[in-house]
């Protein structure tokens, strides 16, 4: 099959439904929570939207809005420059990352039962090896997505899951992140919670290991993903193009997954 035939076949497959597109993106809404740091630190803006006009005196025939948000608001992409460990890497911001990296296969590791039992659940190397024993070795330069069903917590209070000791959301252990970067050469790590790191990730060594190791190695992050339960463990392909923000550390984006219809999870 020539590349042209391949593309034509892909378009046909999408049209026929043989390849399905699954939206892994949360709605950008003012009611969707944002990451919260201690108040003395600078804060990421939540998504906000204001009408410019609504077929009214401000613009009689048209409706449009202005919106504002942080680079790390809603479903978003983390570039290596986001973390101090990736600050000096080449092509480390969203405007300079090679665009081919925005199209890659994904492996989905199902941790939803563990996360239901323990909101602080940390993905382990053993979990990854157990997954590989069933589904094969994680291909180099593919995304690893941690399915926790956390996105099914529609209520912001349950989604953020704060108590007096901070946030309690699942994420990867420091060892698992190092394994994925050093042993499996992954493209990046994706999660359903507000960050790629666990809510208590500040207390790991190093603090926020997923940010530290992934970005230090020039790899990426995806967070606030949804619908991971609709993806097969292997075989999906992600489209993850962030906005082309000059020296941007990240960006809200629409994450789309292509899956073969007969492989999609039900």
């Amino acid at each position, binding site marked *: 099959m020539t590349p042209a035939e391949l593309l034509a076949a892909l378009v046909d497959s999408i049209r026929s439904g043989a390849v399905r597109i699954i939206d892994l993106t949360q709605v950008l809404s003012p*009611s969707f929570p944002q990451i919260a740091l201690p108040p003395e630190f600078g*804060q990421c803006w*939540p998504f906000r939207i204001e009408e410019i006009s609504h077929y009214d005196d401000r613009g009689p025939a048209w409706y449009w809005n202005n919106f504002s948000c942080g680079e790390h608001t809603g479903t978003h992409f983390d570039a290596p420059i986001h973390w101090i460990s990736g600050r000096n890497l080449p092509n480390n911001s969203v405007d300079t990352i090679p665009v081919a990296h925005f199209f890659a296969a994904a492996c989905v590791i199902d941790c939803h039962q563990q996360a239901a039992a323990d909101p602080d659940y940390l993905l382990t190397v053993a979990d990854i090896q157990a997954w590989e024993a069933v589904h094969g070795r994680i291909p180099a330069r593919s995304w690893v997505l941690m399915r926790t069903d956390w996105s099914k917590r529609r209520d*912001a*209070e349950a*989604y953020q*899951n*704060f108590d*007096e000791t901070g946030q309690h959301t699942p994420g990867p252990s420091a060892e698992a992140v190092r394994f994925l970067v050093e042993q499996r050469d992954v493209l990046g790590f994706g999660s359903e919670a507000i960050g790629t790191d666990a809510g208590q990730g500040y207390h790991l060594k190093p603090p926020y290991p997923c940010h530290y190791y992934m970005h230090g190695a020039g790899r990426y992050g995806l967070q606030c993903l949804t619908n991971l339960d609709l993806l097969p463990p292997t075989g999906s392909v992600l489209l993850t193009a962030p906005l082309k923000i000059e020296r941007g550390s990240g960006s809200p984006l629409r994450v789309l997954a292509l899956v073969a219809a007969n492989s999609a999870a039900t």
Partner: protein
Amino acid sequence: MTMPLPPPRRKNPVLRTRQMNLPPSARTRVALGLTVCAARGRFALQRCAACGAIQYPPREVCRRCLATTLRWTAQDGHGQLLSSTRLHHANDLFFRERLPWRLGLVRLDSGPSLIVHLHTDVPEPPVRVRVSARLDRSGRAVLVGLPASEDCNLGDDPMLREMVCDPRYRKVLVTDGTTSVGQAIVRALVEAGAELVWVGQAEPWKRHGSGIDRLRELPQVSIVPLDLTNGRSVEALAGAIAGKVDIVVNNAEVHRTFGIAARRGLDAARAEMEVNYFGLLRLAQAFGPALKARSADGVASAVAWVNVLSVFALANFPAHGTFSASKAAAHSLAQCLRAELRTAGIRVVNVFPGPIDDEWNQNLPPPKVAPGALAAAIVQALRDGLEDVYPGDVAQEWLERWREDPSTLERELATGFER
């Protein structure tokens, strides 16, 4: 004796809601001095610096010696009721809708004779009375004759209730229940007899501590989602409750403790403006029209809008420089709001506390205003019908110095950041 006001009956929803006809509001520029004092709870008349004569009505030159130096001077208001009458007819719409209406002629011990709105509890003349200046629904000072001795139901007199903004039997929105100040305000309003208090909470997932959760134990309280940075949140709440809110207490604020050089970038300053200034604007656009539409809706009508500003709105406190600027912006907008809501008889109460005893003033030395004292001052201001309130020693002192000379105060504040 005035009978205690019974709880108002439920409104008949098929009848038209009465609209406000304001009482006469024309005053000379000089006579606005009476209003300015009444707005702060003072009854003052002009006193001639040359001969000491007390003047009424307000005028440009002394009625006795023609000297031009007349100074507004606090009065105790004691006097003798010479005569009284009861109006049963009036061409002015405001009074026509509130008949009968009692008026009296009082000779003050300090000299002048004046016509006052007379409280029900004042006996027929001759009798001793206390004259007080109150703001009427048009936001102008009028004189009222009160019984010489206090009575617990004084405020239930229909005439006086028209002058003030008593929270009793009224439904109130407090925009932020997550702070100690917000919680104290809610409790004070409930104690003052508010029928319902809606309490705003932004970002409930931040788990603001047990203070707001304990408010839920009060049967009058209902916690509602409200984030002043989010126009859709403000509009959603207004859609749900604005038609029932009688008093808005906007206490939501962001307070950071930076000047210009102490913090790089705009994030903290913008967060302050987003709530303290734009938040007020969003709230006023969403709730203002509904309040205006119900300002004559019976004894529990819509009546007041309270802004918790800061005495730093008067002059910049450089240690909290961006906060001061945001409160100055809010103060300016509150003046606009006062002008707009006045046309419907809704009173805007601006509260200028000194430093509040909360986490963001942790590094400031006392005296600091306790949240409970601030809440009590707000409720008292509503009961007395005030417009400008300066709770706490620091605020009182700043006000005096600011009135003496704003430029001097500015320079004092710039030196060593002293209060």
